[in-house]
Structures are given as structure tokens and as C-alpha cells.
């Protein structure tokens, strides 16, 4: 894994926020319109400051105010939460119980660590171009499934800066989903289940019936990628522990003992082993016999278990979950969390994502020959950040266009009725559930947090 050689100093971060961070694009994306709406002014931002102080419930009236505050506080990163029923920074002045999250992008988080038990090339925080293939498959399947089954159109994929990817869905209906509906949607998309001690993690069939159509559709995509990634590239079944895991998933003692004998004595590639299983179906009398059909179904389930997207469900289930804003800098790698085009996800290489140092250097080079202008409005245009901001802007344009059309169609009162419709459903342990890692810093906020708030007022 390549990491930034130079440390990320506060000076670098500040220069990045001042000159490069595309505040306007991010504002438009969150706000859906050009003039600030509640979607922006009642939106929670949370800052992680230098020294790991964590500040929640920040909110801003305009994009200028956001930029000013970011430059004042100079956070190592910041996160975006839901639109609440009141401005988060005024939450203590509203009646208790009436400060509730109302609207929020539907978000997904896919992290490479969930694939640690499968991938053979890296582990833990490491990610290479080879294991990125797991993520690209997940993107393909999820993107296709959500568009086809739920009909959502405004999907923004954002590289998380190290080993994962986030998805933000901004369709009007998606924004308004209750926690219960989010949970249902996650349930629909979830295929991999079961803890460490459960071998078989795919149990989506009822008895031995065929797979439900939505999963069958995913399987069509996965089948082909399974061969390239799992069998050829990762060689998941080459080692003894690798093929023993595989054998645990085959519900046929005769076939398993045949295969084990065969594999123990000779060196066979994962691809050959996969063919050997197919032969066992033939030995059992073909797919139409009971034994053959069970092995066949098991093979489908194995493809799913090794390649179907592994979702971090908690992130998606609750409206008040915070997620890192696009274009932040990942503190460990120095890479920008850039938007990614799902149509070319296979070509995306995380190692080629611009880092903060690289961008600032590009900027220095660019400004040497240009005339020294004091205002750097869109300095990102001079750097390799440009295509990513443009990708974001195209996404936002489509979103804004639709919002404008629906407003023209239905008059402007509808957004408020939409809000009334929303109940105040509560998640029982929001603090413990979703935000454990972040909240853990809350304890240290105390004095320094207040100091920061005070300094920003001045």
C-alpha cells in the first residue's frame, strides 16, 4: 500500500480547504437548489479537529459560512448527517423531543475489511489494485440492483480514501425514507449473513427453491467475475485451508470425500477444483437429480458468498448516521475522497487518486506562470482534481434539474407536506450503534470544543 510520504500538516490541510475543496459543488449536492434551503441550513455537520477532538451538531446558513468555519477550525475531516427538524446548532433551544432527523440521503458503506476472510492478496488496512476488484463488483451489483428494483436515479459513489467506497442516494423518495423503510431496503439487498462461526453465509433460499429474481439478476453479473477474481486472480481454493472452507459449503458427503481425496494428493488450481465440483454433479446423475440439484444450488450460493456485496448495514439503517463528506482528505493516505463513475468502476485504480501533496504541488506549478491573482475561486480546475469535481457537478446538475421540474409541476408547498408526513421514529441506541468510533472522542471535547465555538463567533 502506498501512503503519503510527507505528513499531513495543518498548514497543508488549510491550504487545501482554502484553495481546492469544492464547497460550491458539495453545497449544491446537499441543497438540491441554488439558494439555501432547510436541506442545507438544518443539516448536521460534524468536525474532527486536529488532536482528535470531535464536534457534532454544527450547522450553517450558507456555503460561505461553511467554508469560513472549515477554514477557521481546519478539521482533519468533516462528516455529513441528516436534515433535522430545526437547525442543529440551535437544538438546545427547541422543545426536547422535537429535534429529530427528517431527511437524509440513503447511504451505503462497503469496506474491504469485510472481505478479509476471502481475499488472499492483502489483509486489514491494506488494499491493492487486485482486491479493489471486490469493491468494483459490489458497486456494479448494488448500482444495478438499486436502479432496477427501487428506481432511484441519483446515485453518487465516493471512494472513501483508503479501502472502501460510499454510496449516497439523493432521490426525493430516498431522502424521505424512515428508519424502518431503510432497514427493509437493506434487508432486501443483504445476502451475506452469519458471524465468524457460521461457514455458510448465504441463506436466501426457502428450502431448495430457486433464487429470488433480484438475486438471480445479481448472480448473472457475479458468475463471470467469480471465475476471474476468485478462481484465477485470488486463487481462493488453492491452499488447504482455502479448499476446506469450500468443502464445508457443499452439502453432499460423497462428493466432499471424493473431492478431498483428489485435492489432497495433487496440486490443482482453484479453477480446476471448480470444474471438479461440476463433475461431481454429473457423477451424481446431473442437475435434475436430487443430489445433483443440491450441489448445483450450493455452487450458486458459493459464488454469492465469495462475490456478493458485503454491506455495513448499520450505516444505512439510521437517518442520523454520519458519513464522511466527499472530497475530504483521508488522514492516513492523504488521498482525496473523490466521486467515482460506476460505469467505469473496473478501471478505477485507488492508487491513482490524487493526494493532497500532489494537488498542492500542481497548484504551485500552475500559479508560477499564471498572473498572480489574489482570489483563487476555482483553483481545482488547474489540478488533477478537475475531472472529479466535474463528475460531481454533472451529478448535481441532473439532480437539480429534476427538483426544478417537480417544483414547477407541483407548486412549492409540497416539500413541507412531505416533511409533515414523516414520523419521528426513534432508533433506540443511536449513539452506541452507529457512531461508536466517532462518539468515543466526545469525552475529550469539553473545553476545547467550547473554545472552538467561541473563537468562531468572534
Amino acid at each position: 500500500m502506498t501512503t503519503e510520504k510527507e505528513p499531513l500538516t495543518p498548514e497543508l490541510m488549510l491550504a487545501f480547504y482554502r484553495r481546492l475543496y469544492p464547497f460550491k459543488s458539495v453545497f449544491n449536492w446537499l441543497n438540491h437548489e441554488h439558494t439555501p434551503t432547510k436541506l442545507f441550513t438544518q443539516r448536521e455537520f460534524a468536525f474532527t479537529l486536529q488532536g482528535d477532538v470531535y464536534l457534532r451538531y454544527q450547522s450553517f446558513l450558507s456555503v460561505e459560512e461553511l467554508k469560513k468555519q472549515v477554514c477557521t477550525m481546519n478539521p482533519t475531516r468533516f462528516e455529513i448527517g441528516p436534515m433535522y427538524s430545526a437547525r442543529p446548532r440551535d437544538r438546545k433551544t427547541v422543545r426536547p423531543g422535537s429535534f429529530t432527523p427528517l431527511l437524509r440521503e440513503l447511504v451505503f458503506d462497503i469496506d474491504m475489511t469485510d472481505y478479509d476472510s476471502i481475499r488472499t492478496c492483502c489483509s486489514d488496512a491494506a488494499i491493492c489494485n487486485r482486491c479493489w476488484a471486490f469493491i468494483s463488483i459490489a458497486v456494479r451489483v448494488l448500482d444495478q440492483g438499486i436502479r432496477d428494483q427501487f428506481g432511484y436515479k441519483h446515485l453518487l459513489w465516493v471512494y472513501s480514501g483508503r479501502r472502501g467506497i460510499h454510496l449516497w442516494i439523493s432521490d426525493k423518495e430516498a431522502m424521505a425514507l424512515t428508519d424502518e423503510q431503510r432497514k427493509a431496503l437493506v434487508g432486501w439487498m443483504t445476502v451475506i449473513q452469519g458471524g465468524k462461526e457460521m461457514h455458510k453465509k448465504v441463506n436466501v433460499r426457502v428450502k431448495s427453491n430457486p433464487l429470488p429474481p433480484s438475486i438471480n439478476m445479481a448472480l448473472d453479473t457475479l458468475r463471470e467475475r467469480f471465475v476471474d477474481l476468485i478462481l484465477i486472480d485470488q486463487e481462493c481454493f488453492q491452499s488447504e485451508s482455502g479448499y476446506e472452507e469450500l468443502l464445508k459449503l457443499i452439502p453432499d458427503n460423497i462428493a466432499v470425500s471424493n473431492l478431498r481425496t483428489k485435492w489432497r494428493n495433487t496440486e490443482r488450481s482453484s479453477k480446476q477444483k471448480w470444474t471438479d465440483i461440476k463433475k461431481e454433479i454429473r457423477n451424481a446423475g446431473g442437475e435434475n437429480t436430487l443430489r445433483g440439484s443440491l450441489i448445483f444450488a450450493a455452487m450458486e450460493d458459493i459464488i454469492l458468498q465469495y462475490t456478493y456485496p458485503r454491506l455495513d448495514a448499520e450505516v444505512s439503517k439510521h437517518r442520523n448516521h454520519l458519513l464522511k463528506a466527499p472530497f475530504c482528505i483521508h488522514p492516513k493516505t492523504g488521498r482525496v475522497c473523490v466521486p467515482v463513475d460506476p460505469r467505469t468502476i473496473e478501471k478505477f485504480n485507488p492508487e491513482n487518486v490524487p493526494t493532497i501533496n500532489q494537488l498542492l504541488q500542481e497548484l504551485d506549478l500552475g500559479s508560477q506562470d499564471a498572473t498572480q491573482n489574489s482570489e483563487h475561486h476555482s483553483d481545482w480546475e488547474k489540478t488533477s482534481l478537475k475531472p472529479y469535481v466535474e463528475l460531481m457537478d454533472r451529478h448535481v446538475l441532473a439532480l437539480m434539474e429534476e427538483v426544478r421540474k417537480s417544483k414547477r409541476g407541483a407548486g412549492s408547498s409540497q416539500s413541507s407536506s412531505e416533511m409533515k408526513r414523516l414520523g419521528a421514529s426513534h432508533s433506540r441506541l443511536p449513539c452506541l450503534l452507529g457512531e461508536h468510533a466517532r462518539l468515543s472522542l466526545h469525552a475529550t471535547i469539553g473545553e476545547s470544543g467550547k473554545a472552538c465555538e467561541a473563537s468562531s463567533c468572534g
Partner: protein
Amino acid sequence: MYFSHHKKCREELRRRFVKAELALFKIRYETDDREERQEFMRVHKFGWAEADDKEMQLHGDKLAEASSWSTQAANAQEKYYKVKWTRVPDLVEKRRVFLKDGMAYVPAREQSSIVFQEFSSSLEKALERTAKELPRLDEDTRIVPILDNLSQGFLAGVSSEWTSASTTADGDEITADMVDELARKHFPMCMRNLHECLRRDRHLKHYGRLQYGLFLKVLGLSIDEAVAFWRRSFSNIQDDKFNKEYRYNIRHSYGLEGKRANYAAKSCQQILTSDQPGAQDSHGCPYRHFAPDNLQTALLSTYSSQGLTSSDLPEIMHTVKAGHYHVACTRVFEITHSAQEVKKGDGVGGGDSVTHPNQYAARSRELEKAILDARKADMDGDVPMS
């Protein structure tokens, strides 16, 4: 503080109320005959469109697949209703409908599910509206006492969960040093597993910490002892990281941070149904979330010193297979406490089966204490040999 507690209670009450009302409604709906049902549907106009022929042709095969994979063979003549998926979240969550472009195609036989969903969501909304009005009712001195009284009766009637939560089994506090021994003698399989994982990996993932930490809290581990316990257990982690990432959460679970809620330990029901363990997780219920062979190995290695043998396994695995995880757990309790004269059918006292890990541990400690007390009484009664 008082108010938020009050509010929390009311939320819990509301949930229970909706659940009970829904159960009653289901019974009434199911005992109605067809005509009554049709009349009911006509009067209420739920606004479902029947899927038309064109759509039926377009999605025909998939509709059949979608509905046949979950239940009996599809009926070609069956009608489908087309509704926004957001109106049938429970069917979506279980993949019991066909979904296309945000519309759910609900087979007629699942129609009752839509009705039930509609019933509970409109009831919830009405209750929420009432809840918002309630502060104003506080001014009226007559109605609030009546409501409070009613709600208490309601809770008393429904609750069968183990509730002696915050009290420790014998009034003693336990310390971090005692956990190893207590685990060995008194913990149910889920907590034994978390304890072993913690000792082996010197770490537990978030939900594991939550499940185990709250259990230990209720068992009687004070906040200071809890911090000491986790600090020592995470022996690979530097102080700095521990203080930053874990101390807050431990204090939070004791109600000392954030919104200062006093969280109860998770019941079996919660462990079984919420926060399903992911691929790298160790929490959950072993009877439910372990592969059968791993469960058998784990049971033997965990409890053989307390008298569980491989001849007990078939019976336990049989109940596991039938989905009666609490029965399996209760049986393990009986077997491992046979030395304290617990017999089959005794359960965790009075024939009760396990509904809460703390109930399991508390009962186990009670039995031990009873024997110790008896022994002590014997000793005291003995005439010293001269």
C-alpha cells in the same frame, strides 16, 4: 432526566400497545369471512392498483418466481397488487414481493400483510399525534394519573422478560479479577464465546463489546471495574488509543456520557433478532448463529468440565434445528447444573426457560450460593472435634 425517562417509557409503551392491538386486529381480520373482508377493503380504499395485463405479461415469469420461491407453487391466475414499496417494508425486507422501479407487486395472498402494515402505521401516527398533545394534558390533573395507572397495568400484563436487571444476584459487586472465574462457572454459551474471543484476540468488535459489556454491567461490574477489565483485556492496545476509542463507549453504556441513558443488557430476544452478526463478528446467539459442527465443538470444549458429554448433543442439536434456541440453552443449563440437583424440566427455576443471559448467570450463581450456604450451615452446626 426525569422527562426523557418518562418519554422513553412512553415510547416503549407505545410499541407494546401497537403490537398488542395489531395482534387483536389480526385475529379479527382472519376470523372475518371473505365478504366481510371485501367490504372492509372497499370501505377503506387503500388505493392499491391491480397490476394490469400488460404488466403481468412483461414481468410474468419473474412475478411467479418471486412469489413461488417463498411459498407454495405459484398460481397462474393469482392477482397482483401494485403499491409503492415503501408501503410494504416488511414484505420487501423478507423479499416476498417482486420489485421493479420502486413498485412492489404483491400477490393477493399477501394482501393481509399490507392491511396489517396499514393498520399499525395509522395507529402509530395517531399515537404520535397524541403524544405530542400530551404535555398540554399535563395541566389537567384528572387524566394523567389515570393514564399512568393504565400504563402500569399494561406493562405488568405483558412483560415476561427477565427484569430484576439492575440488582446483582447476591448484592455483591464483582470485580474485574473475578470475571474469568465467573465466566467459567456461570455464563451462558453466548457470553462464554465472547469471553473466549476476548481472551484469544485481545479484542472484541463493537457489537461484541456492547453485548458483553452490558451483560457484565448488570452482573454487577462497576464502571471503574469495567474500565479496568476492558483495559486489561485489550492488552495489545496502547493506553492512548484505548482512552480515545473505547473509554467513552464504556462510560456511555453506564449512562455517564452522551444522553446518559441507562441501557439494559440485551435479552435473548434482542440478541436473536437485532444486530445480526456480520462475517467478522463474534456476538449473537451461538445456538442460532454458529454452524452446527462449530456449535457442537464449542459446547463440548466449553461445558465438558461441567458435565456435558457428547451423548447430550443429539438432543440439543435437535432443538437447535427446530429453531428453539432458548430450549437448547435451557437444556445446557440443566445439564451443567445437574451437580446442584437441577433436573430436566427444571429450567432456570420453576420450569422457566432462558430468556435473558443475565437470568442464566444469576440463577447459576444463586444455586452455587445456596449450596455454599448449606455447607456453611452444616459446618457451623458441627460439634468441634475435641
